[in-house]
Each structure stands twice: as structure tokens, then as C-alpha cells.
């Protein structure tokens, strides 16, 4: 007789999740986006991924992540961002591995900067073409490069803001649900008040309030306003589980409240809370791109997909400025919604039994 192995809850949930083709496709898509975000400078850029210059190996492409990572020697030798020609002229012995697409997210590529590549077209000449697959914006900056580098923003917005919202929501919900009494009363009132403030009102007021909006501040604001639903759900779960037998057992074994909440209740309450967090990621991405679209987002250097759409508003004849970033936002939001749905079906026992 074969031995029956009892798998854990998350393993069983993963097995059920894997059976849903749409949810799996969405997960693969998000992984693809993570890959694009990490490899962005190697996909589109004008700085070599790796190069050998005057006997040393450098990775100038890292400066796309942070300007301070630009190797000092290239600043000293006055490269000014144009690598191909300078490398050839200043060190004939040099070699370099270039990004897949020679286009920069922050400036237009000039004529013959790369052998055989003409200058980027500007204004409404910039139809998608052989050199600019997604076209160029009115200043001639490549849309594909902007989008590839904007992936980081789109992903970070989701993870950072919902990480924050999830933490606040779980802490508030856990304290209220576990202790009850006046703590619960107070925290529930606070949650209700935050819920009553129209979200966009609060976000617009907060964004206008912070002096210099950066993408991190926007994320913090979205997170600080989006925790109410999570808190309510977490409160309900903690309220339900605190009177369960395993909590009683833990308490009689001498566990303190913090230990009970973290080690005993939280793992059991995590699955239902994870679902609204996933949906929250989708709506956080939507909110960020809507804010950038309205001109309330972070200033130009960080290329968010919503900011690209904002450029399109005044140039409606340039359809490619709407189509590609718009579809990117849509697909990302759809993917997170599908993952949330899949997660819900895989972890919610009520939905599972009814499927049979």
C-alpha cells in the first residue's frame, strides 16, 4: 500500500492554483515583467552592459538604476552619455557588449550615433518603424525604451504600496480583532473614518501636500490610504480565530498575546488577507498611472507608463503613445486581478467544495 503523504495548506493551494490556465498565464506574465524590470538596461539603453576600457572592465548600464553607479572614468573622459563613438576613439583596444535595442529612455538617439542607425524622428513623424518598434514621442525619445525602463515603476508601485497597506491593515486588524474591547472600538472607528474619505480626494490632497513628489512618496501615499479593506478582513479573521481551540491550547501552554497573534493566528489568517492584497496591487498600479496621467505623478526622469499616456493627451494623432503604454497598464492590471481570483479559488474552502 502506498504511503499517503499529507501536504501542507500552501502546497495544496498551489496544486489547485496550477490547474487554472488563466491564473498561471497571469503569473508567468508577472514573472516576465519582473525579468524585464531587472534586465531593463540590458534590453534597451545606450550604455554598454559590459565593456573593457583602458584595461578595466566596467558595467556602465547600471547607471540606469542609479546615476551614481556611472563609472567615474567615463565622466572624467567626457563621454557625456554617448558611448559607441567615444569608446572607439579613446581606446581602440576596447570592446563592449551592447543592450538588445540601442535606444535611450531619456533622450533621442542622434544620427549615426550607432553605425547605420538614423536619428529618431520627432513629433508625429515617429510612427512605429524598424528602429523604433513602438514609435517615438514628440521629442524623439523611443517609446519602447521608456516602457521597458518604466516597468520597474509599475512593479514597485504594486509591491511597495501594497506591502505598506498590508502591514498597516494586518496590524490594525489583528490588534482590533484579537483584543476586542475599546481597542477594537477605537481602531474600527479610525478605519471607518479613513474609509469614508473619498480615496482620490485624500490622495490628491496628500500628493499636493508633499513638496516634491517622487515615485516613492506616491507609493507611500497609495499604501497609506489603501489599507482599510485589508484591516476589516484581518479583523474578522482574528476575531473568528481567537476563540478557536488551537489558540486556547497555545494560551494554556503559556504563549503570550504577541506570540499567539504572530505564530498561531497569522499563518491561518494569511490566505484570506492575501487575496485583497493582490487585488490591491492591481488597483495601486491603476491609481499610480491615473495620478501620473493627471499630471500629479512623479517628475519626468522616472518614466512611468501613466506619464507616457499624459504625453499622448496633447498629441492624439500619435496613437502609438496611447496604444502601447495603455495595453501594458491594462495587461498588468488584468494579470494581478487574475492572480487574485486564482488565489481566492485556490485558498477559499467554500469555493473549492462547491466546484465538485
Amino acid at each position, binding site marked *: 500500500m502506498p504511503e499517503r503523504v499529507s501536504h501542507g495548506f500552501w502546497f495544496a493551494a498551489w496544486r489547485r492554483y496550477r490547474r487554472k490556465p*488563466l491564473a498561471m498565464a497571469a503569473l508567468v506574465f508577472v514573472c516576465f515583467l519582473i525579468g524585464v524590470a531587472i534586465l531593463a538596461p540590458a534590453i534597451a539603453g545606450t550604455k554598454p552592459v559590459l565593456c573593457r576600457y583602458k584595461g578595466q572592465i566596467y558595467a556602465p548600464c547600471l547607471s540606469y538604476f542609479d546615476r551614481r553607479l556611472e563609472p567615474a572614468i567615463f565622466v572624467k573622459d567626457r563621454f557625456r552619455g554617448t558611448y559607441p563613438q567615444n569608446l572607439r576613439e579613446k581606446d581602440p583596444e576596447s570592446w563592449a557588449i551592447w543592450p538588445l535595442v540601442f535606444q535611450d529612455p531619456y533622450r533621442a538617439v542622434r544620427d549615426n550615433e550607432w553605425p547605420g542607425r538614423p536619428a529618431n524622428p520627432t513629433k508625429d513623424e515617429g510612427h512605429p518603424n524598424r528602429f523604433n518598434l513602438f514609435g517615438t514621442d514628440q521629442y524623439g525619445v523611443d517609446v519602447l525604451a521608456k516602457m521597458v525602463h518604466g516597468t520597474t515603476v509599475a512593479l514597485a508601485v504594486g509591491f511597495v504600496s501594497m506591502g505598506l497597506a498590508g502591514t498597516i491593515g494586518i496590524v490594525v486588524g489583528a490588534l482590533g480583532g484579537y483584543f476586542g474591547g475599546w481597542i477594537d472600538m477605537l481602531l474600527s*472607528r479610525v478605519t*471607518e*473614518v479613513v474609509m*469614508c*474619505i*473619498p480615496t*482620490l*480626494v*485624500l490622495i*490628491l*490632497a*496628500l500628493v*499636493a*501636500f508633499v*513638496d516634491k513628489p517622487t515615485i516613492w512618496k506616491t507609493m507611500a501615499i497609495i499604501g497609506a490610504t489603501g489599507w482599510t479593506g485589508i484591516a476589516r478582513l484581518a479583523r474578522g479573521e482574528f476575531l473568528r480565530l481567537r476563540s478557536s481551540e488551537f489558540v486556547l491550547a497555545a494560551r494554556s501552554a503559556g504563549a503570550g498575546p504577541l506570540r499567539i497573534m504572530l505564530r498561531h493566528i497569522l499563518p491561518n489568517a494569511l490566505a484570506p488577507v492575501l487575496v485583497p492584497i493582490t487585488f490591491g496591487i*492591481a488597483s495601486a498600479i*491603476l491609481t499610480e*498611472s*491615473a495620478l501620473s*496621467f*493627471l499630471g500629479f505623478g512623479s517628475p519626468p526622469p522616472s518614466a512611468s507608463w501613466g506619464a507616457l*499616456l499624459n504625453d*499622448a*493627451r496633447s498629441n*492624439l*494623432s500619435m*496613437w502609438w503613445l*496611447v*496604444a502601447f503604454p*495603455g*495595453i501594458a*497598464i*491594462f495587461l498588468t*492590471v*488584468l494579470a494581478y*486581478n*487574475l492572480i487574485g481570483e486564482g488565489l481566492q479559488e485556490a485558498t477559499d474552502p467554500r469555493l473549492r467544495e*462547491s466546484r465538485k
Partner: protein
Amino acid sequence: MLNYMLRRLAIGLLTLLIITGVIYGLARSMPGTPLTVALGETDPSRKLNPADLERMKMAYGLDKPWYQAYFLWLGNVAQGDLGRSISRKQPVTTLIGERIGPTLALSATALLLTWAMAVPLGLYASARSGMPDERATSFLLYVLYSFPTFVAALFLQIIFAVWLRGTPWELPLFGMTGDLVDPSWAARLADVARHAILPVLCQTYVSLAWYSRFIHSTMEEVVRQDYIRTARAKGAGPWRVLFHHAFRNTLIPLVTLLGLSLPSLLGGSVIIEQIFTWPGMGRLFFESIRERDYPTIMGLTLLFSVLTLAGQLLADLLYCVVDPRVSVE
């Protein structure tokens, strides 16, 4: 009942105090004042000299710290005075009165269209649950639900205002009215309707997807109940079970939803009104934040919060009406 209403009212008033206090503090802490933002940003030479600025600050009550000004504002509100807009030189109530009509025209049309389509769609989906056509419809609705409104609005603008320019299908890009040679009321109405098509379409599709999914999922839960099995067992036909036994029981969550949609009905959508430059409440709010027009920001915040609270109360009361088992006590 009276006791319950009084308690809700007390809690509601407290909530209102906290919300308006927070927003007042935030609004006053935004960099710039209505006086400097309006003049200084466009042309540095038109900046006010410090003495004039002080005088104007005095005149508008901006010289006091925000917590003092907040209580002054609160006192005026208690007497029914929302104050005068600083940037528009008009009473806030007049401004809101002007903007509420256009917003209502958009959102009421969208809400009616949504309900008229969402209920049949949701019922259809539950009647054909699991069939290939239902799966296709549901997936399509899901896709629509994830489609950002501002992207859809831009696509629609490109199609109807740019690509179809010069054809009979061309629709106006923005605004609520165009230049009319013939100002008869019928022509004016037709003009407004033509301008409203795209914004209404944008507002409808997202809520349509959301509502019909909601109806479908509540139906899914209801059809698993014992009384549905009983109805089937006693020989009721599938349509009778669907309408008579199942749908009636989904009305409870639906009615709650109706109450909760009250704030968006009058509050409008900032994004859609901004894209289509529709002169409604959402756009007024957006502009007043840009202009640091504190009285207007506060008037609108107060209105939005009152509507949200009233919507919640309405939802709870309606809940008791449709479900006799629930009582407010």
C-alpha cells in the same frame, strides 16, 4: 428606531468633524496659497509685493493658522455658509449648484444604463453557468473590468475624434457644448447628448462589468442554498427558480450597492471629467486643488463625505426594508 438613528447621526457627525479637520489641515499645508499659485506660476513679474500679499491674506483669513481658520470655517458651515471661492470670486454653493447638473446628467445616465444591462447579463451568466458562452462573456466582462478608464477614454477619443473626423460618426473631443448657430432647445439638447456619449460610455463599461460580475457571484451563492434545491425538487421550471426563488434573494446585496453608489452619483469621476473637460463636480475638485482654493476644496469634501455617510445609512435602512429578518436594533 429613533435611538438607532440618533446614534448613527452622532457617529456620523463625529466622522464628518474628523474628515473635514484632516482635509482642512492637509489643504492648508499644501505648498503655495491661492494668491501665490494663481499669479506667481504664470508670470514672475506679476508676483504680489509682500505688503499687498499680507493685506490680501488678512482679507481672506489666510493669516491665521489652519486650526483657528478651521473652527471659523466650521462656525460658518453651521450657519449654512460655505464661504466664497478665492480663485473664482463666487460663493461655493453657487459653484456647486452650477456643476452638479452636468455631473448628474453623466452619472445618472451611466447608472441607469449599467443597471439596465447588468441585471440581464448577470442573470444570463447564472442561467448558463459553466457553459462555453457564459465563460466567454464572463471573461470578456473581466477583461473590461481590468481595462483602465483613462486608457479607454483616450482610445475612444482617438477613434471618434481623430480617425473618424469628417465622417458622420465623428464625436466631439471634449467640453459639454459646441458652437451652435441654431440655439433652439432641441438642438442644444442634441449637442449636449453628442458630447456626453463618450464620457457616459467610459463610465458605464467599468461599472457594468463590476455589477454584472457581482450579480453573478451572489446568484452563484444563492443557487447553492437548500430552498433552491427544494424549489427544483418540487418541480419548478429553471426560469421560475431563477427569477422567483433565486433572483429575489440577491436583491438584498444589490440594494446595499445602490445606497453605496450615491456618492459617485453626485460626486462624479475626477478622471473622466478631467479627460473630457466636462464641467462637473470632479473637475471642480481637481481644479480647486490645483488653485489651492480652500473654500471650494472644503465645500466639496464636506459634500462628498456627507454623501458617503448618507449612502451607508441609506444602504443599512434599505437592507431592513428588503429583508424583514434584519432590524436596525
